[in-house]
Protein backbone atom coordinates (compact mmCIF):
# COMPACT_ATOMS: atom_id res chain seq x y z
CA UNK A 1 0.00 0.00 0.00
CA UNK A 2 1.04 3.64 0.06
CA UNK A 3 4.09 4.46 2.09
CA UNK A 4 2.54 5.92 5.18
CA UNK A 5 4.55 6.60 8.28
CA UNK A 6 4.22 3.89 10.84
CA UNK A 7 2.18 6.02 13.18
CA UNK A 8 -0.10 7.51 10.57
CA UNK A 9 -3.57 8.17 11.84
CA UNK A 10 -6.65 7.69 9.78
CA UNK A 11 -10.06 9.14 10.36
CA UNK A 12 -12.92 6.79 11.03
CA UNK A 13 -16.51 7.85 10.99
CA UNK A 14 -18.84 5.48 12.73
CA UNK A 15 -22.28 5.49 11.23
CA UNK A 16 -25.10 3.93 13.06
CA UNK A 17 -27.73 1.71 11.56
CA UNK A 18 -31.20 1.34 12.93
CA UNK A 19 -31.39 2.12 16.58
CA UNK A 20 -27.72 2.10 17.49
CA UNK A 21 -26.50 5.27 19.18
CA UNK A 22 -24.65 7.86 17.12
CA UNK A 23 -20.92 8.35 17.64
CA UNK A 24 -18.56 11.04 16.54
CA UNK A 25 -15.61 10.50 14.33
CA UNK A 26 -12.37 9.14 15.65
CA UNK A 27 -8.79 8.83 14.65
CA UNK A 28 -6.83 5.67 14.88
CA UNK A 29 -3.43 4.44 13.82
CA UNK A 30 -3.83 2.84 10.43
CA UNK A 31 -1.46 0.05 11.37
CA UNK A 32 -3.96 -1.23 13.88
CA UNK A 33 -6.22 -4.06 12.89
CA UNK A 34 -9.93 -3.84 12.38
CA UNK A 35 -10.39 -5.81 15.59
CA UNK A 36 -9.33 -2.71 17.46
CA UNK A 37 -12.27 -0.78 16.04
CA UNK A 38 -14.57 -3.61 17.00
CA UNK A 39 -13.31 -3.60 20.57
CA UNK A 40 -13.55 0.16 20.72
CA UNK A 41 -17.19 0.18 19.71
CA UNK A 42 -18.06 -2.70 21.95
CA UNK A 43 -16.73 -0.80 24.93
CA UNK A 44 -18.26 2.49 23.88
CA UNK A 45 -21.66 0.97 23.33
CA UNK A 46 -21.44 -1.37 26.27
CA UNK A 47 -22.35 -4.32 24.11
CA UNK A 48 -20.81 -7.74 23.69
CA UNK A 49 -21.68 -7.93 20.07
CA UNK A 50 -21.71 -5.21 17.55
CA UNK A 51 -21.95 -5.90 13.87
CA UNK A 52 -19.65 -3.70 11.85
CA UNK A 53 -19.39 -3.42 8.13
CA UNK A 54 -18.46 -1.08 5.35
CA UNK A 55 -21.20 0.41 3.29
CA UNK A 56 -19.63 -1.24 0.28
CA UNK A 57 -21.29 -4.25 1.81
CA UNK A 58 -18.88 -6.44 3.54
CA UNK A 59 -17.73 -7.00 7.03
CA UNK A 60 -13.96 -6.80 7.27
CA UNK A 61 -11.92 -9.50 8.86
CA UNK A 62 -10.70 -8.47 12.31
CA UNK A 63 -7.20 -9.08 10.98
CA UNK A 64 -7.36 -6.49 8.24
CA UNK A 65 -5.20 -3.44 8.71
CA UNK A 66 -7.28 -0.33 9.03
CA UNK A 67 -4.95 1.49 6.66
CA UNK A 68 -5.75 -1.04 3.94
CA UNK A 69 -9.45 -0.45 4.35
CA UNK A 70 -8.94 3.29 4.53
CA UNK A 71 -6.87 3.36 1.37
CA UNK A 72 -9.46 1.36 -0.50
CA UNK A 73 -12.72 2.74 0.78
CA UNK A 74 -12.23 6.13 2.41
CA UNK A 75 -14.29 8.97 1.03
CA UNK A 76 -13.09 12.51 1.64
CA UNK A 77 -10.32 11.13 3.79
CA UNK A 78 -12.70 9.33 6.13
CA UNK A 79 -13.47 5.67 6.39
CA UNK A 80 -17.11 5.18 7.15
CA UNK A 81 -17.73 2.13 9.28
CA UNK A 82 -21.32 1.18 9.76
CA UNK A 83 -22.40 -0.56 12.86
CA UNK A 84 -25.55 -2.20 14.08
CA UNK A 85 -26.58 -3.95 17.23
CA UNK A 86 -28.13 -6.85 15.37
CA UNK A 87 -26.57 -10.02 16.72
CA UNK A 88 -24.59 -11.55 13.92
CA UNK A 89 -24.86 -15.10 15.16
CA UNK A 90 -25.91 -16.99 18.18
Amino acid sequence: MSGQPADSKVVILFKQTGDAPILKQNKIDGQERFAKLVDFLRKKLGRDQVFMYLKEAFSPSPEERIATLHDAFAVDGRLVVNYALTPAWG
Partner: protein
Amino acid sequence: MITAEEFAAGAQMLAAAWGRCLAGDTQWCWQASTHPFAASVRTVLPPPLPPEAAPAAAGALPPTDQPSSAQRKAGSPGPASTSSGDVGFAIQEEEEDPASVAGSPAGSSSPPQLLTLTCHVAYHPSYRVPVLYFEAVGPNGVPLGLGAEHPLLRRPFYMLHPCQTEAIMQLLTNPEDDSQLDGAPAAAAAGSREATGATALPPQAAPAAHGRMLRYLLAWLSVAGQPLGLSPPVELWLQASS
Protein backbone atom coordinates in the same frame (compact mmCIF):
# COMPACT_ATOMS: atom_id res chain seq x y z
CA MET B 1 -32.89 -13.85 -0.53
CA ILE B 2 -31.37 -15.44 -3.52
CA THR B 3 -32.41 -18.25 -5.78
CA ALA B 4 -30.65 -21.55 -6.08
CA GLU B 5 -29.46 -20.60 -9.53
CA GLU B 6 -28.06 -17.32 -8.30
CA PHE B 7 -26.31 -19.10 -5.50
CA ALA B 8 -24.86 -21.62 -7.92
CA ALA B 9 -23.58 -18.90 -10.21
CA GLY B 10 -22.22 -16.79 -7.39
CA ALA B 11 -20.58 -19.72 -5.66
CA GLN B 12 -18.73 -20.78 -8.75
CA MET B 13 -17.57 -17.25 -9.34
CA LEU B 14 -16.43 -17.05 -5.75
CA ALA B 15 -14.46 -20.26 -6.14
CA ALA B 16 -12.86 -18.95 -9.31
CA ALA B 17 -12.13 -15.49 -7.96
CA TRP B 18 -10.73 -16.89 -4.75
CA GLY B 19 -8.47 -19.21 -6.70
CA ARG B 20 -7.23 -16.35 -8.86
CA CYS B 21 -6.64 -14.03 -5.97
CA LEU B 22 -5.24 -16.39 -3.39
CA ALA B 23 -3.13 -19.16 -4.78
CA GLY B 24 -2.24 -22.12 -2.62
CA ASP B 25 -3.61 -22.34 0.86
CA THR B 26 -7.31 -22.43 1.22
CA GLN B 27 -9.32 -23.13 -1.86
CA TRP B 28 -12.95 -23.65 -2.65
CA CYS B 29 -14.20 -26.48 -4.71
CA TRP B 30 -17.58 -26.32 -6.35
CA GLN B 31 -19.64 -29.44 -6.13
CA ALA B 32 -23.09 -29.73 -7.52
CA SER B 33 -25.52 -32.11 -5.95
CA THR B 34 -29.13 -33.04 -6.17
CA HIS B 35 -29.33 -33.88 -2.55
CA PRO B 36 -31.53 -31.67 -0.51
CA PHE B 37 -30.20 -29.33 2.03
CA ALA B 38 -29.36 -31.95 4.60
CA ALA B 39 -26.94 -33.75 2.36
CA SER B 40 -24.41 -31.00 2.50
CA VAL B 41 -23.71 -32.17 6.03
CA ARG B 42 -22.10 -35.31 4.80
CA THR B 43 -18.55 -35.24 3.72
CA VAL B 44 -15.63 -37.53 3.75
CA LEU B 45 -12.62 -36.33 5.60
CA PRO B 46 -9.21 -36.66 4.11
CA PRO B 47 -6.74 -38.95 5.78
CA PRO B 48 -5.00 -37.28 8.69
CA LEU B 49 -1.54 -35.98 8.15
CA PRO B 50 1.33 -36.61 10.50
CA PRO B 51 1.96 -33.64 12.77
CA GLU B 52 5.13 -32.79 10.90
CA ALA B 53 3.23 -32.06 7.75
CA ALA B 54 3.46 -28.53 6.44
CA PRO B 55 0.92 -26.29 8.04
CA ALA B 56 -1.65 -24.29 6.14
CA ALA B 57 -1.93 -26.82 3.39
CA ALA B 58 -5.37 -27.28 2.00
CA GLY B 59 -7.10 -29.88 -0.03
CA ALA B 60 -10.22 -29.66 -2.01
CA LEU B 61 -12.96 -32.19 -2.03
CA PRO B 62 -13.39 -33.82 -4.62
CA PRO B 63 -10.58 -33.16 -6.99
CA THR B 64 -12.51 -31.43 -9.69
CA ASP B 65 -10.37 -29.07 -11.55
CA GLN B 66 -8.36 -28.00 -8.60
CA PRO B 67 -4.63 -27.88 -9.10
CA SER B 68 -2.84 -29.93 -6.58
CA SER B 69 0.42 -29.17 -4.98
CA ALA B 70 2.70 -31.13 -2.78
CA GLN B 71 1.21 -29.46 0.21
CA ARG B 72 -2.35 -30.43 -0.46
CA LYS B 73 -3.97 -33.33 1.23
CA ALA B 74 -5.47 -35.91 -1.02
CA GLY B 75 -9.10 -35.11 -1.53
CA SER B 76 -11.54 -37.81 -0.74
CA PRO B 77 -14.55 -38.59 -2.82
CA GLY B 78 -17.42 -36.37 -1.98
CA PRO B 79 -21.00 -37.30 -1.32
CA ALA B 80 -22.42 -40.00 -3.47
CA SER B 81 -25.05 -38.22 -5.43
CA THR B 82 -23.65 -35.59 -7.66
CA SER B 83 -25.71 -34.18 -10.40
CA SER B 84 -26.87 -30.71 -11.03
CA GLY B 85 -29.50 -29.30 -8.80
CA ASP B 86 -28.90 -28.39 -5.28
CA VAL B 87 -25.66 -26.96 -4.48
CA GLY B 88 -22.77 -26.83 -2.21
CA PHE B 89 -19.11 -26.23 -2.23
CA ALA B 90 -16.43 -27.22 0.13
CA ILE B 91 -13.25 -25.95 1.50
CA GLN B 92 -10.64 -27.65 3.54
CA GLU B 93 -8.19 -25.76 5.49
CA GLU B 94 -5.51 -26.82 7.85
CA GLU B 95 -4.65 -24.47 10.57
CA GLU B 96 -1.89 -24.65 13.05
CA ASP B 97 -3.48 -24.33 16.38
CA PRO B 98 -1.01 -24.60 19.21
CA ALA B 99 -3.73 -23.54 21.55
CA SER B 100 -6.04 -26.24 20.29
CA VAL B 101 -8.40 -27.33 22.98
CA ALA B 102 -8.45 -30.93 22.01
CA GLY B 103 -6.65 -33.54 20.06
CA SER B 104 -4.43 -36.05 21.69
CA PRO B 105 -2.54 -34.64 24.60
CA ALA B 106 0.65 -33.25 23.23
CA GLY B 107 3.88 -33.45 25.07
CA SER B 108 5.83 -30.28 25.33
CA SER B 109 8.16 -31.40 22.58
CA SER B 110 5.55 -32.24 19.98
CA PRO B 111 4.88 -29.88 17.13
CA PRO B 112 1.78 -27.71 17.10
CA GLN B 113 -1.45 -29.57 16.62
CA LEU B 114 -2.86 -29.44 13.16
CA LEU B 115 -6.52 -28.81 12.91
CA THR B 116 -8.42 -29.55 9.79
CA LEU B 117 -11.21 -27.13 9.30
CA THR B 118 -13.68 -28.22 6.70
CA CYS B 119 -16.27 -25.78 5.56
CA HIS B 120 -19.18 -26.28 3.27
CA VAL B 121 -21.29 -23.55 1.86
CA ALA B 122 -24.68 -24.76 0.81
CA TYR B 123 -27.90 -23.22 -0.29
CA HIS B 124 -30.82 -23.43 2.09
CA PRO B 125 -33.92 -23.79 -0.05
CA SER B 126 -36.35 -22.73 2.68
CA TYR B 127 -34.55 -19.63 3.83
CA ARG B 128 -33.12 -19.01 0.39
CA VAL B 129 -29.80 -17.96 1.75
CA PRO B 130 -26.39 -19.53 1.97
CA VAL B 131 -25.57 -21.55 5.04
CA LEU B 132 -22.18 -22.41 6.34
CA TYR B 133 -21.29 -25.77 7.74
CA PHE B 134 -18.02 -26.40 9.40
CA GLU B 135 -16.21 -29.07 11.23
CA ALA B 136 -12.91 -29.19 12.98
CA VAL B 137 -10.94 -32.36 13.17
CA GLY B 138 -7.76 -32.98 15.05
CA PRO B 139 -4.66 -34.52 13.55
CA ASN B 140 -5.68 -38.05 14.39
CA GLY B 141 -9.03 -37.63 12.74
CA VAL B 142 -10.97 -37.18 15.94
CA PRO B 143 -13.59 -34.50 15.56
CA LEU B 144 -13.35 -31.64 17.93
CA GLY B 145 -16.35 -30.38 19.74
CA LEU B 146 -16.38 -26.68 20.28
CA GLY B 147 -14.89 -26.32 23.68
CA ALA B 148 -14.92 -30.00 24.43
CA GLU B 149 -13.57 -33.08 22.82
CA HIS B 150 -15.97 -35.90 22.25
CA PRO B 151 -16.64 -38.26 19.42
CA LEU B 152 -19.50 -37.09 17.24
CA LEU B 153 -21.76 -39.66 15.71
CA ARG B 154 -21.56 -39.65 11.95
CA ARG B 155 -19.47 -36.51 12.20
CA PRO B 156 -22.23 -33.97 12.10
CA PHE B 157 -21.22 -30.53 11.10
CA TYR B 158 -21.79 -27.38 13.01
CA MET B 159 -23.94 -24.98 11.14
CA LEU B 160 -24.47 -21.28 11.35
CA HIS B 161 -28.20 -20.98 11.45
CA PRO B 162 -29.69 -19.19 8.49
CA CYS B 163 -32.36 -17.22 10.30
CA GLN B 164 -29.98 -14.39 11.03
CA THR B 165 -28.53 -14.39 7.57
CA GLU B 166 -31.47 -12.59 6.09
CA ALA B 167 -31.29 -9.68 8.50
CA ILE B 168 -27.57 -9.36 8.03
CA MET B 169 -27.74 -9.50 4.27
CA GLN B 170 -30.40 -6.86 4.36
CA LEU B 171 -28.04 -4.60 6.27
CA LEU B 172 -25.22 -5.28 3.91
CA THR B 173 -27.13 -4.90 0.71
CA ASN B 174 -29.54 -2.15 1.60
CA PRO B 175 -28.52 0.81 -0.48
CA GLU B 176 -27.48 3.77 1.65
CA ASP B 177 -28.09 7.35 0.70
CA ASP B 178 -24.79 7.62 -1.08
CA SER B 179 -24.34 3.99 -1.93
CA GLN B 180 -22.12 3.15 -4.85
CA LEU B 181 -23.57 -0.29 -5.27
CA ASP B 182 -25.34 -0.63 -8.56
CA GLY B 183 -28.17 -3.05 -8.81
CA ALA B 184 -28.30 -3.85 -5.12
CA PRO B 185 -31.08 -6.34 -4.60
CA ALA B 186 -34.29 -5.00 -3.20
CA ALA B 187 -34.52 -5.51 0.53
CA ALA B 188 -36.01 -8.88 1.20
CA ALA B 189 -38.39 -9.72 3.98
CA ALA B 190 -36.86 -9.81 7.41
CA GLY B 191 -35.77 -13.18 8.72
CA SER B 192 -38.72 -15.42 9.19
CA ARG B 193 -38.93 -19.07 9.93
CA GLU B 194 -41.44 -19.56 7.14
CA ALA B 195 -40.30 -19.64 3.58
CA THR B 196 -41.71 -16.66 1.79
CA GLY B 197 -42.14 -16.08 -1.85
CA ALA B 198 -39.06 -15.03 -3.72
CA THR B 199 -38.55 -11.31 -4.01
CA ALA B 200 -38.09 -10.53 -7.64
CA LEU B 201 -34.79 -8.86 -8.34
CA PRO B 202 -34.75 -5.80 -10.50
CA PRO B 203 -34.05 -6.77 -14.08
CA GLN B 204 -30.37 -6.70 -14.73
CA ALA B 205 -28.10 -7.61 -17.55
CA ALA B 206 -26.64 -11.03 -16.92
CA PRO B 207 -23.05 -9.93 -16.26
CA ALA B 208 -24.12 -7.28 -13.80
CA ALA B 209 -26.36 -9.74 -12.03
CA HIS B 210 -23.54 -12.24 -11.76
CA GLY B 211 -21.24 -9.62 -10.38
CA ARG B 212 -23.87 -8.85 -7.82
CA MET B 213 -24.10 -12.49 -6.86
CA LEU B 214 -20.39 -12.67 -6.37
CA ARG B 215 -20.53 -9.60 -4.17
CA TYR B 216 -23.48 -11.05 -2.30
CA LEU B 217 -21.58 -14.22 -1.53
CA LEU B 218 -18.46 -12.32 -0.60
CA ALA B 219 -20.53 -10.17 1.71
CA TRP B 220 -22.16 -13.22 3.22
CA LEU B 221 -18.85 -15.01 3.61
CA SER B 222 -17.29 -11.95 5.18
CA VAL B 223 -19.80 -12.30 7.99
CA ALA B 224 -20.28 -16.04 8.22
CA GLY B 225 -16.62 -16.86 7.90
CA GLN B 226 -15.38 -14.44 10.52
CA PRO B 227 -15.71 -16.69 13.57
CA LEU B 228 -13.74 -19.31 11.66
CA GLY B 229 -11.08 -16.95 10.42
CA LEU B 230 -12.34 -17.47 6.93
CA SER B 231 -12.99 -13.92 5.85
CA PRO B 232 -12.40 -13.12 2.23
CA PRO B 233 -9.52 -10.67 2.03
CA VAL B 234 -10.04 -7.11 0.95
CA GLU B 235 -8.26 -7.74 -2.35
CA LEU B 236 -10.93 -10.18 -3.39
CA TRP B 237 -13.58 -7.65 -2.64
CA LEU B 238 -11.82 -4.92 -4.57
CA GLN B 239 -11.48 -7.25 -7.52
CA ALA B 240 -15.14 -8.14 -7.42
CA SER B 241 -16.21 -4.55 -7.19
CA SER B 242 -14.16 -3.22 -10.03
